[in-house]
């Protein structure tokens, strides 16, 4: 993501000396730096501060020019995750999780399939490429408006089977109220801990095998302790005094479909670019060794697509975590079955003037995105410096 074809400037060249022109250069950059410092870091800090206050609970103070804000600690977060009155945020998080998983899998899968088909040297490749990528140029609002019409229960997609002699589709898409794979919200700490424990154990195990024993023992130990804690019912964490069922709302399927429609051309373009970058000799060599067409993909091509898949996953995950406009256009901001945290933030902060609660949702969103982006930025830039 960070680089195009990039050459870090050589520090030993003649421009190294700090001249008056260097001073001009820094002064030219300075306004952008200051503005970004305020608009990115300053505002993030403010959001975090707001999330620790009660701003908005008193309607008289909500829109005051100099609102009085009292410090309430983590109370807003506690309300979101364990509040008895605020239940929507928890379903929003679950919705976001399912949406993200299916959106990424669908977009990567369809994009890869299309790229492989086009890579086989078909006639009219330019035409197909244009057709598959054009939705990416559209606004999510346009896509949403169009797909809302496509997914009307009595029309659109549901009519298609009738044109090949099958009965009309019965699924109600966005208005569906069905929920599957439901689980108790109180299990979330245990499930999260188990996932983290599994990752730690995997890291520890691979460290053990590559003979970095010291660090491996730490990872294995912490992972094991976490797993034991989780399996014994996560003692020490009280979520809700009663079971609360949360699951996958089938209404999301239509939204996922539209999102995949819009973004899979993009992954196709990424995959096609890297497929074209694989030297033909590599595949030829595998064929000479007797590999079938499928085996060439399985053993030569797919392993080489790993890095681009990771990049695409991060970009798609980033888009998915902050998804807002598509759902707004397809289902409206108020429909709870398809809602996500970004929509709830809008409703709370900008319709209900509950700014502190909105800020707490914003911080949760930022933390989720940061866990995806920071390691990626870090490794990209470290690689660049090393080169």
């Amino acid at each position, binding site marked *: *993501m960070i680089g195009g074809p990039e050459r870090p*400037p050589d520090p030993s060249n003649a421009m190294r000396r700090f001249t008056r022109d260097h001073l001009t250069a820094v002064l030219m950059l300075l306004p*952008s730096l200051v503005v970004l410092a305020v608009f990115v870091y300053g505002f993030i800090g403010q959001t975090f501060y707001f999330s620790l206050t009660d701003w908005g609970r008193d309607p008289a103070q909500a829109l005051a020019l100099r609102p009085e804000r009292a410090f309430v600690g983590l109370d807003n977060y506690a309300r979101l995750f364990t509040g008895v009155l605020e239940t929507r945020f928890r379903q929003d998080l679950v919705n976001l999780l399912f949406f993200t998983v299916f959106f990424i899998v669908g977009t990567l899968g369809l994009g890869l399939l299309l790229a492989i088909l086009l890579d086989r040297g078909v006639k009219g490749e330019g035409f197909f490429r244009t057709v598959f990528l054009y939705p990416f140029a559209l606004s999510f609002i346009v896509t949403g*408006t169009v797909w*809302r019409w496509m997914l009307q229960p009595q029309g659109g997609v549901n009519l298609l089977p009738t044109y090949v002699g099958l009965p009309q589709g019965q699924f109600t898409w966005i208005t569906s109220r069905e929920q599957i794979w439901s689980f108790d919200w109180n299990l979330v700490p245990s499930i999260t801990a188990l996932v983290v424990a599994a990752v730690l154990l995997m890291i520890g195990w691979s460290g053990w095998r590559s003979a970095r024993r010291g660090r491996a023992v730490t990872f294995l130990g912490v992972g094991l302790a976490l797993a034991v804690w989780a399996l014994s019912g996560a003692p020490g964490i009280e979520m809700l005094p009663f079971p609360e069922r949360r699951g996958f709302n089938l209404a999301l399927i239509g939204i996922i479909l539209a999102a995949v429609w819009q973004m899979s*051309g993009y992954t196709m373009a990424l995959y096609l670019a890297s497929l074209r970058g694989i030297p033909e000799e590599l595949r030829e060599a595998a064929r000479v060794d007797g590999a079938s067409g499928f085996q060439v993909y399985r053993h030569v091509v797919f392993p080489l697509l790993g890095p681009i898949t990771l990049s695409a996953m991060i970009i798609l995950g980033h888009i998915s975590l902050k998804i807002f*406009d598509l759902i707004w256009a397809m289902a409206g901001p108020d429909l709870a079955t398809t809602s996500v945290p970004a929509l709830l933030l809008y409703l709370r902060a900008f319709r209900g003037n509950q700014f502190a609660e909105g800020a707490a949702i914003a911080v949760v969103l930022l933390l989720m995105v940061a866990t995806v982006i920071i390691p990626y930025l870090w490794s990209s830039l470290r690689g660049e410096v090393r080169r």
Partner: protein
Amino acid sequence: MMAALGRVRWSWRWLTYLLLLLATVFFLGPIYLVVVTALKEPAAIRLATAWHLPETWHWQSFAVAWEAFGPGLRNSLVLAVTATAISAMLGSLNGYVLSKWRFPGANIVFPLMLFGMFIPYQSILIPLFQFLRDIGLYGGLAGLILTHVVYGLPITTLIFRNFYAEIPDEMLEAGKIDGAGFFGLYARIVFPLSVSGFVVVVIWQFTQIWNEFLFAVTLTRRASAPITVALAQLAGGEAVRWNLPMAGAILAAIPTLIIYIILGRYFIKGLLAGSVKG
């Protein structure tokens, strides 16, 4: 043996084209439905006949939509053109500084700038709203332009920095010997070489800003709302017949689609610049 192999190849070919055809239907189907719906008389739009061609071609929907969405389209045009121009210009200067005038700390400053392009904008929305209200720019286009310029800086800076890294330092050295300073080198050497860099950045920024919704819906009042907000509001109302939102969707899509079809090559370049690791 050869014949059998030939047949296998042949059927693979068939399967490839069959799948491509299915994919084409999947990607173009929505366009077909939008166009026929926009061209039907409002009274003739029924769910059961959604896929049928219109019996009479009703072009007036576009006139009505033009009336309804004219202000939104105008706002979007002013917004996208202004914000794109300013952020491209600033990005070019920043990229020039960061690639050709390395200074101590540049390696720390650049990633800190880049982070701004990855944050979910929800995380700065509430202070931004408050800030714009305090300085009197909330609700109008000026505040939205400022917002898009600021949050466009990381990506425009990134693209230009990578673009200028390709210009050999020796060219600038030669210019220096001729007595050119910071601005002279930029005006005489760097800027004239920037045309395709500007094309990539302008396409990227224009498309992003034209299509953007979150800032638009939170920071503008009705009179200065861009097209995305106008379309979302109309489509949300149930009383409206479907020909109008469909015609509106077409109007909202046309500018970015034209850019994509005419300048697709640069569009893909920008897209890869924003996503592929060198």
